[in-house]
């Protein structure tokens, strides 16, 4: 079993905040396939299209037949630890600060032997379950978990380096008025977040679930309006240094494309909230989070954007909203690049239609607030960068990957083809 982590002590104000160091981040272009798979928490390796040989490490030509047709495929995660060692010192600053560090070689049931980080509960020569996760450099690395669950296994210090588990962390949910705010707060309370700050815009206007929000353990309502720079700046000045996970659930949407509306008023509101809101939050909270990536057990860990999957391909019935989502998606890539030196994970959670007032006339399937909240907490526990919640989002990204132009043409028909 793993020793359970304990609530981190209050910060010693005389100690310098530790600066985030990073594990080696250089990869070949071929090896970045592992990173792309890790972004979604998938264990994938190249599999030769001609001879079927599973490849490891990633390469440009098949180790068996020299074919260059090596598509990435999901691989069965089972294997056995055949060699292991515990590193007690290292020339890498990152690992030197984190020793002892367990590494080993696992023979996969799928064929090759892989080098991986090893969970403390894996027995010598024991069966393992391989996962592929992003490290603090944002690169895919393989990690061997025990094949059977062990007690407190999430608390393994090496595993925690690869995840953004909300346990004992302080979370800011930016929009308390959102219909998903209550489900998010409840999910983070269940995940044992130590404080759940919830931003509340326009306190002069009531909303129906306010009392229910206040009743969730560890919730603190704080004034925040992502369209108001002064409000964002003031809140960041107060709690930016103890915001470990920021979940931006602020969203403005109205139905309609270009000509149904005939003006730019709602489109401007969509950009103000969905795009500039993200920018304001990132400018205000980003620097403080960047500086706290290695700040102990409740270090800054992750930034979560909830985005419409129509960021990838415009849904004309929600055309202007889709465009603002695309802008936010693009900005999230910039944020990811800027957050990377601090080891802060930027996780985008993409949804199709959500179960709320603005999608009320749409038929199911729609993503329920509770499903969205579960996906966010699970994604943080897995340290993911990209999460597609629900059938519509998953179907759309599959079609986008198969052919964006084909998808664009499908989206212009009947409400998005298969969606």
């Amino acid at each position, binding site marked *: 079993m793993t020793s359970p982590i304990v609530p981190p002590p209050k910060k010693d104000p005389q100690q310098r905040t530790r600066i985030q160091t990073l594990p080696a981040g250089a990869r070949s272009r071929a090896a970045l396939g592992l990173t792309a798979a890790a972004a979604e928490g998938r264990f994938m390796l190249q599999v030769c299209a001609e001879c079927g040989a599973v490849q490891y490490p990633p390469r440009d030509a098949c180790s068996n037949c020299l074919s260059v047709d090596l598509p990435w495929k999901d691989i069965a995660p089972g294997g056995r630890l055949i060699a292991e060692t515990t590193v007690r010192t290292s020339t890498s600053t990152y690992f030197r600060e984190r020793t002892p560090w367990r590494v080993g070689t696992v023979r996969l049931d799928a064929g090759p032997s892989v080098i991986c980080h090893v969970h403390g509960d894996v027995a010598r020569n024991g069966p393992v379950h391989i996962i592929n996760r992003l490290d603090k450099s944002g690169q895919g690395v393989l990690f061997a978990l025990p094949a059977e669950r062990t007690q407190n296994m999430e608390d393994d210090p090496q595993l925690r380096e690869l995840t953004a588990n909300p346990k004992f962390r302080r979370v800011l949910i930016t929009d308390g008025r959102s219909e998903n705010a209550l489900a998010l707060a409840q999910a983070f309370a269940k995940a044992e977040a130590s404080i759940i700050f919830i931003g509340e815009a326009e*306190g*002069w206007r*009531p909303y129906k679930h306010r009392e229910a929000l206040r009743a969730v353990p560890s919730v603190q309502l704080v004034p925040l309006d992502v369209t*108001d*720079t002064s*409000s964002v700046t003031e809140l960041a000045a107060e709690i930016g240094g103890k915001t470990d996970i920021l979940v931006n659930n602020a969203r403005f949407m109205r139905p309609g494309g270009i000509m149904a509306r005939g003006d730019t008023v709602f489109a401007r509101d969509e950009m103000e909230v969905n795009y500039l809101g993200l920018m304001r939050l990132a400018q205000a909270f980003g620097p403080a989070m960047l500086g706290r990536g290695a700040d102990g057990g409740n270090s800054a860990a992750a930034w979560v954007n909830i985005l419409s999957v129509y960021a990838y391909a415009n849904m004309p019935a929600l055309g202007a909203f889709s465009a603002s989502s695309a802008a936010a998606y693009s900005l999230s890539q910039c944020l990811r690049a800027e957050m990377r030196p601090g080891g802060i994970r930027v996780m985008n959670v993409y949804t199709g239609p959500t179960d709320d007032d603005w999608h009320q006339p749409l038929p199911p399937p729609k993503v329920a607030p509770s499903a969205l909240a579960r996906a966010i907490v699970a994604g943080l526990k897995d340290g993911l960068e990209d999460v597609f919640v629900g059938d519509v989002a998953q179907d759309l990204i599959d079609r986008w990957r198969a052919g964006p132009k084909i998808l664009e043409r499908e989206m212009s028909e009947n409400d998005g083809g298969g969606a």
Partner: protein
Amino acid sequence: MNVHAQKPAALIGDLALALASGAVEVIDLTHTLDPDFPVIVLPPEFGQCARFRMEEISAYDHRGPAWKWHNFTCCEHTGTHFDAPSHWISGRDVPNGSVDEIPAERFIGPVCVIDCSAGAKANEDFELTPQIIEAWEAEHGRIPAESWVLMRTDWSKRRGAEYLNMREDGAHSPGPTPETVKLLVDGRGIRGFGTETVGTDAGQGAHYTPPYPAHFFLHGAGRYGLQCLNNLDRLPPTGAMLIATPLKIRNGTGSPLRVIALVPSKDAQ
């Protein structure tokens, strides 16, 4: 109106001196343009009143070393603001119905203040009725033509959610009945009507016939509105002068503005 014994030049000169000496006091009837100040809330499928927002362009820094300035955005009807006739469908064909067309002399004039603060304190849906107007006139004299009439409710002292006082059946705040607005417009020929609440109409004004009677009758007759006024408790019932000059916005239906009143100083009396 009686022709004043004094010549205009002497009148203005005396007023200027009285302002300088403090014998005439200037009261600011304006709320600060603040991002968190309430605006009217409509059903979300309708277009909404933009909140006041401000973005720094530079602040003596790398973006502009010796100067500080901001861009700000808002609606014509954000904060303490003026309603022009073209704001309402009843006033869409009124001549000189937009703020840029209104003659400047209409922005300054006499003002009558009707104190409804006790009633509004007791009843958040308090109605200004013709009987109240008539009782006020019995005490202070007939409301002169071309004067502003302000409904004092002390609503400007409310903060946060108490201001709009929004519930599931809508906002609850005081305002005039349709008959009252007709009396003021047709019977007295007022220039405009002003309130401390977010609109010239009551919070439940949509349920009158016609809906929003103050907007409907005032603007249909080419009269003006002022709302979100402040400090009305510092005005005398009569004898003050109101100055309300909206921004000269082309085809503007209203404008945030600084509303001030000139009143005789209590000390000088």
